[in-house]
């Protein structure tokens, strides 16, 4: 037996350096507003997506810690970890619990508190997503790997790294209208060009920002009006994996986990990619955004960055596809375990902005440099 799954409530706190708040404070701030109605007593499970609560915040068994804080002792409590896709993995598990009939209502929380550690400790923590024996132990961080991929891509496509700049600037521009984004001042070409180099050819603004954040949502087997007289249904969440080490991939410039995960969810949801009108990608680094577009088939091989730049040239409003409407990870910041659910928050906001009564949206969340991927399809439909 499978049932429909709906998002019946969602709330995200602003992404920032929340100096005065612990990881539990952040999760509570996100979830408490959703629990004021009688729904709280009918929640059967709390699924928490988080990557580094043990490494940085000295707290594992995080789902129990949060359930306890929220006064929800007795619920089934599980933390899911899939590197930067932890939030999406939590959504996958929550979705499956309702779809399969195990629970009627599930609270899903994505939370990350990265600002508790020194910069070097956080970078080391984030590198835990990669292959320790062949990558991390050699001193490679996520940014180094992304930089190497970018160099490879530029060489293969015969382009300059500056081709990626416009996309970064557009992301920061879009984030100005995102109430939960960390960066709301925009970015000029001058500021981008003057920014320090981090790992050649990546500059500061090419890299995702260390930040704290939390999003909570309630999944239910029955719909609820999330605004504008429409419901948000999850048509599917599916994951796929690739080699852990970037260097072990058959083609270093192909994110096959993205391709497989997208195909799986489209198949299981019974839709075509052409039906998707709103898209959130995992644009932690511009190279990943470009490779994701190629993986899901929106752009041809080595033409991902061209596609991004075409989008800007033609003007986003003239596109039929709403891509990274609110700035993506670039403008939003990257509280890793919560990012997957911030994508859902932004996707719903993008879908609610549209005048169409019935539309589909897709969010793709990656772990590591594409070693893990979860793709979600949402449907905004009439109640």
């Amino acid at each position, binding site marked *: 037996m499978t049932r429909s799954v709906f998002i019946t409530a969602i709330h995200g706190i602003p992404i920032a*350096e929340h*100096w*005065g708040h612990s990881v539990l404070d952040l999760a509570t701030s996100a979830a408490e507003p959703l629990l004021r109605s009688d729904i709280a007593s009918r929640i059967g499970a709390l699924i928490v997506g988080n990557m580094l609560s043990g490494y940085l915040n000295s707290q594992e068994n995080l789902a129990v810690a949060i359930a306890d804080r929220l006064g929800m002792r007795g619920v089934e409590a599980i933390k899911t970890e899939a590197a930067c896709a932890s939030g999406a993995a939590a959504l996958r598990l929550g979705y499956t619990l309702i779809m399969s009939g195990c629970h009627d209502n599930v609270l899903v929380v994505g939370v990350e508190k990265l*600002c508790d550690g*020194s*910069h070097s400790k956080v970078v080391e923590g984030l590198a835990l997503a990669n292959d320790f024996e062949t990558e991390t132990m050699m001193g490679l961080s996520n940014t180094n790997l992304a930089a190497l991929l970018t160099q490879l891509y530029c060489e293969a496509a015969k382009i300059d790294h500056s081709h990626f700049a416009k996309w970064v600037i557009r992301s920061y521009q879009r984030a100005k209208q995102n109430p939960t984004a960390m960066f709301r001042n925009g970015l000029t070409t001058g500021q981008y060009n003057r920014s*320090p180099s981090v790992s050649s050819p990546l500059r500061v603004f090419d890299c995702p920002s260390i930040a704290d954040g939390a999003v909570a949502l309630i999944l239910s087997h029955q719909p609820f009006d999330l605004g504008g007289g429409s419901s948000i249904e999850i048509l599917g969440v599916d994951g796929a994996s690739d080699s852990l080490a970037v260097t072990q991939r058959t083609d270093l410039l192909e994110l096959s986990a993205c391709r497989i995960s997208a195909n799986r969810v489209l198949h299981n949801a019974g839709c075509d990619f052409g039906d998707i009108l709103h898209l959130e990608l995992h644009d932690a680094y511009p190279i990943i955004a470009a490779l994701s577009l190629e993986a899901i088939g929106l752009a041809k091989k080595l033409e991902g960055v061209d596609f991004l730049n075409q989008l800007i040239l033609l003007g986003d409003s003239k596109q039929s596809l709403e891509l990274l409407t609110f700035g993506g990870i670039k403008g939003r910041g990257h509280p890793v375990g919560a990012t997957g659910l911030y994508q859902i928050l932004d996707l719903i906001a993008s879908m609610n902005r549209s005048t169409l009564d019935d539309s589909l949206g897709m969010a793709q969340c990656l772990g590591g440099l594409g070693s893990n991927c979860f793709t979600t399809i949402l449907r905004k439909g009439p109640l």
Partner: protein
Amino acid sequence: MQRTPETCPLRIVASFGTIYWSKPIATIEWSDCGILSWGSYVPTFRLDTNLISDQWGGQSSSSKSLANIDEDATTLGLEATRRSLRGCSIAPDQLGCLLFGSESKPYSAKASAITIAEAIGATPWLGAADLESACRGGIEGLFRLVDSISNKRFSYAILVASDVAHAAIGDALELSASAAAVAFVLGPATECSFVLSYSVTYCTDTHDFHRRDGSSFPVHGGRFTGEPAYFRHTLAAAQEFMQRTETKPQDYRFAVFHQPNAKFPIEAARRLGFSPAQYEPIMFADRLGNPYAANSPLGISLAIRQCDVGDKVLVTSYGSGAGSDCFAIQQVRPRPTLIVDDKSANSGNFVRTYADYLRMTRRIKRETE
């Protein structure tokens, strides 16, 4: 070489002109203690921080002062103290107390204050101790003396703030850790050109720059250094002081802030509502670096040097750990002037290589004799 306030030789000419008293505003609580005279010593050597970033990467576009191999916080403090005494006519044995604020004092148990007091001939009958509160140790000491002089425990005292700051090789702090000392001779307000108000202090146990006992080098607090540390304490103390005294930014000629770098004090000043004319003339971080405990005192010396009678200066210190003090200084009469030759301030003496810097900071030394 461009002549800026800190590169001009300090010349004070004796004069016995008319002295008049300017009444301070009733809402600021003025103490009965003032600054009789002051002296500063910034070591002559300069390091272009490009020499550091060329080695370890990163970007920099500034310089900092560098103590020579035979200098330390005590020797710098002594030189500043000697200079401060030249600006007034009190005898060393008239001093009731000498306090020394530093976070790089040579002995963990032996007061540099006593060494300096001995060297200037102020011993044996005076109070003397060293204070530490990161970069605000000197300012904390200042107000212990303000209280004592206002309560007439003694008439005269000296506050010395001095540091020869070190940082670990390759650490970000290497770009700013510098050296300087400032000494203030304090006396009864009726004898001084500059009167001090009582202060407001805001302190919390906040993670920031620190140095563990036994460690040669401090560790900085990363991004904690910003909003939760520097800005929280600086803004809280300054806002509280201005609120209590019912004063506004426009009431002050200058605003002195702790300058750990060139950006933070400007941002603090901007948030509080001060204009560039109130802080730009006293900025030194880009040229001299951060001399830790001597930081705010150096800012004070640069500000009061440019004041006229009736002007007020708002001072907000900051020390990691963390705490901020906020107080006002007002010039109430023309400052007395004595001729003092201050060659060291007139420096363009840049070290040539990173190796010179390593030798002067005792990181490398001869291995054979």
